[in-house]
């Protein structure tokens, strides 16, 4: 009797995340750079790790790339353990902060590097390199040395080089930070278009919240090595969970006060709220406050009288600094409407005062 080996197809859950970061911590000496991070990334997603310098975002990226080992926790990709593999055996590629193009190789050889070291068939390499170079519009520079290229051009080559291995996950470590403002905006939209076109999952690291908002499907906000909030850009802006998030993402007014007998009191502002008594912090975005020329308000609104301390013209909008009484300063963003002075009535909707954790 010979035993029959039945080969079973691997059970793949279509909804399973591409990458799972499970309770990963990283300690350098006595410093906890990452404190038990758990994060899932879906296939095809554009996820941004956002945080200040020193928040641990680059360390998390390096753990996924394999340049560092987690102190504890595990990283899984496509149902396989990732963190125990050396970097060259991971189907993850990285676009480095300063591009890290090989100075001794020309553009073509830089892009071909991944295929060559992995032993791709020699006949296949030129066509794939050409394709990758045309994807990033760098075909005419194939013979140039990296030192001859501008920052934006090096950026494109780095992208082509990282994508040629067809990674399951592309890591981008502040790839646009070295570019000037105009070029950065242009590269942002190209990057987003490229990601949609090729459908590869992007994990993008940046400290620039505007960039994160513009590009991402979801933002993971890191603070001191811990995840502060993970949500879509719209949600994280509209419903920040913490005071830190509210301040980091966009501009806001943080109102500190207390709730007593279903009334929230923050300085001169008071409104009804159905929550238990205690101290409370609210985030009120500047653009949710508006002028009330007739001094009227709806039941769902809060009205206050404020004197204008400062007005900053910003093209399409104006930013006012308004004293709501007793020196409580509120920032108010209005559509551009000419110079304003003196006292005015302002209103905001109660629903726009978002209670946040301190």
């Amino acid at each position: 009797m010979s035993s029959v080996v039945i080969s079973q197809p691997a059970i793949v859950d279509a909804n399973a995340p591409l990458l799972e970061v499970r309770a990963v911590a990283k300690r350098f000496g006595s410093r906890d750079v990452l404190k038990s991070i758990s994060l899932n990334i879906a296939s095809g997603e554009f996820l941004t790790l956002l945080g200040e310098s020193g928040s641990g975002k680059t360390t998390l990226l390096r753990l996924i790339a394999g340049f560092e080992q987690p102190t504890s926790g595990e990283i899984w990709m496509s149902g396989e353990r990732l963190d125990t593999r050396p970097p060259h055996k991971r189907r993850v590629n990285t676009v480095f902060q300063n591009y890290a193009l090989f100075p001794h190789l020309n553009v073509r050889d830089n892009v071909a590097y991944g295929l060559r070291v992995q032993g791709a068939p020699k006949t296949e390499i030129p066509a794939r390199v050409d394709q990758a170079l045309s994807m990033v519009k760098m075909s005419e520079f194939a013979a140039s040395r990296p030192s001859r290229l501008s920052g934006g051009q090096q950026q494109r080559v780095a992208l082509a080089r990282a994508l040629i291995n067809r990674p399951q996950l592309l890591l981008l470590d502040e790839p646009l930070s070295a570019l000037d403002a105009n070029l950065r905006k242009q590269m942002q939209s190209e990057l987003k278009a490229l990601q949609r076109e090729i459908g590869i999952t992007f994990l993008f690291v940046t400290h620039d919240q505007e960039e994160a908002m513009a590009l991402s499907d979801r933002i993971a906000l890191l603070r001191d090595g811990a995840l502060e909030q993970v949500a879509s850009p719209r949600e994280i802006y509209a419903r920040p969970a913490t005071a830190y998030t509210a301040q980091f993402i966009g501009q806001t007014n943080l109102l500190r006060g207390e709730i007593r007998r279903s009334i929230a009191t923050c300085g001169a502002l008071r409104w009804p709220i159905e929550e238990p008594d205690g101290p409370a912090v609210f985030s009120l975005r500047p653009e949710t406050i508006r002028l009330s020329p007739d001094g009227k308000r709806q039941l769902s609104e809060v009205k206050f009288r404020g004197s204008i301390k400062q007005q900053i013209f910003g093209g399409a909008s104006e930013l006012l600094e308004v004293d709501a009484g007793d020196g409580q300063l509120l920032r108010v963003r209005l559509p551009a409407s000419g110079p304003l002075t003196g006292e005015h009535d302002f209103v905001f909707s109660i629903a726009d005062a978002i209670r946040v954790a301190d």
Partner: protein
Amino acid sequence: MYSRAYKTIVSAPPLLWVSLFLLLPYALMFAHSFWAVQDGALVHHWNIDNYRKLLANPLYADVLFRTMRIAASVMLCSLLLGYPLAYYLSFHSGPRKELLYQLVIVPLWVSYLVRGYAWKTILGSEGVLNGFLQYAHITHAPVGFLLYSPFAVVLMLTHIYTPFVFLPIYASLEHIPRPLVEASQDLGAGPISTFFRVILPLSMPGLFAGATFAFVLSLGDFLAPLLVGGSSGTMIANIVQTLFGAVYDWPLGAAISVCILLITLSLLFLTEHLEKRWSFR
């Protein structure tokens, strides 16, 4: 902008130094090589007989080729020792880096002569090495080829010049941006592939500089052959020394020196070209 006077004052000392201690002696040497000796006295008859003698007598060519063979062996051996050492220190030594670096450099503070005599003590027939070989019953009588042979010269010069080879290689390895190494791994290259495709090419300038050090310094060495070389380990500098000192044939000695100088200069020219070709800043 600096004033003319300032520029003149600043550049005068090095110019003076170079003319007085480099150009003038070389000019004298060059002139001597075209003069002659008659009845033990130098006469200023311009001729090319010295160079004819060099070509006619195979002894000079033999010694010159032996010298170049020894210099090449020293270069090869010190590269084989120095490069792995520099690579380990730069990439894998971790927190011990500073200490190990000092340990490599320390022998440079020890006098050349002391190290030469130390090798004599180690390699001699009554020496440490022969003592050990007999004690371990590997040999029954002192081994002769250890001392007073080209082998001993290569060994001693390798010991002395390995730090000189190590230093430029180490410097060039330290200058390789580490993200390049990570990028290579990231793209799928293992450690060996990364070494040959990224690290080695980017350290070539240091390697050329180190190789030149070892070769050129060995080429002109006369103490190592004097101390441990014996008659079979004589090098070209010993001949020059004898011609100037014992034989008192300065013109012939100068002619040999000019030849060595030309070899050295063309070598420096070549390595400078190579270093430029392999630097990508």
